[in-house]
């Protein structure tokens, strides 16, 4: 059986997506997305704009946030704290990898 090859796509950071597109792409309602913006988990490019737009990599953030919220029964504020802390852990782990890579004979 021949299997066709599918392209995996980058999240093009220069591309902007509308609230409706984001909702469609991550299977979350616009109302739920609004809530994520309200509690500071998602940031529109221009919060003052009439029609919000987002960087397309917000897709991953929105999906993660929604999953956490649903699975752990978090309220919006609890969710915001968890997301902030997860971001910090991510940054610290990246920093750690960077430092380890620079260590001669470094641990891999």
């Amino acid at each position, binding site marked *: 059986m021949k299997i066709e090859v599918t392209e995996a796509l980058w999240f093009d950071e220069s591309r902007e997506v509308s609230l409706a597109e984001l909702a469609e792409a991550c299977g979350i309602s616009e109302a739920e997305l609004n809530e994520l913006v309200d509690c500071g988990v998602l940031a529109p490019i221009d919060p003052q704009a009439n029609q919000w737009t987002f960087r397309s990599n917000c897709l991953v953030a929105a999906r993660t946030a929604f999953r956490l919220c649903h699975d752990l029964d978090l309220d919006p504020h609890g969710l915001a704290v968890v997301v902030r802390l997860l971001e910090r852990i991510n940054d610290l782990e990246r920093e750690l990898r960077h430092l*380890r890579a620079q260590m001669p004979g470094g641990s891999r």
Partner: protein
Amino acid sequence: MKYKDYYSILGVDRGADADEIKKAYRKLARKYHPDVSKETNAEEKFKEVAEAYETLRDPEKRAAFDQLGSFQPGQEFRPPPDWWKQFADTGPTFEDIDLADLFAGLTRGHARQGRGGKIPVPGEDYEVAVHVTLEQAFHGAEVDLDLTLPEYDDQGFPRRVPRKLKVRIPRGATDGQKLRVPGKGGKGLNGGRDGDLYLSIVLHPHSLFRVTGHDLYLDLPLAPWEAVLGTTVKMPTPGGPVNLKVPPGTRAGQQLRLAGRGLPKPHGAAGDLFAIVQVAVPTVLNERERGLFKQLAEGSTFNPRGHFESE
């Protein structure tokens, strides 16, 4: 179908009330949620726990589960004859249904019936980790994915179907990179859109190169005289060997940068390759070598610890 004991998965009694079930679920979810947990098998464990909770939290499904009877986990069983009539309007059209899918099917069946028609249900999105080597990340690669995704029959009952997929990973996808494969997730139902597949790239450790973002680091051992006099060395890079000029007086720990020799970036540019200099010392010397070092020691005015004395 194989039996799973949802009560023992959550660690509660069969008679537990809704509150106890919720409490038990929350405790286990905090421990095993794949987004926050570092436990091994966190994802698998969480799936089990979530599946148990999905059924036990809903009084109707819990009653249906209780009516199945009690078996040993993993034991083959069939629902009692009148079970289908009582809890589902119709049964699935296939035999090899999974217990989780059976209960998921009850909801879907009800949603469909309740609204008096077939409503489109979008397919689910799935996230999978894809392991690639540094060479694959550098050149781009086609990788085979073996997935198990649900498909639905006319009644809305899901069935896990193995699916083989070939995906092209673009060059320059580095560790932790997320990629999207549109339309390759779960199938939509009643004309709903198909879900997407999210890939999370995991880079295999390489024996020579250490990766951070798109930059690479490599240890470059030099002989003492090479570090002192300078030299040209043939350096391995993911794109093939290149000549690197080492200037005279190169110190251990210094980083020599080969611009653009790291992993390619999505929009044209590329990371850098850094060679970290190490001065390697021969541990076994022949007569002549020993003589030359002695000569150097006697004739040199170099004092590497001059700064100790000014203290």
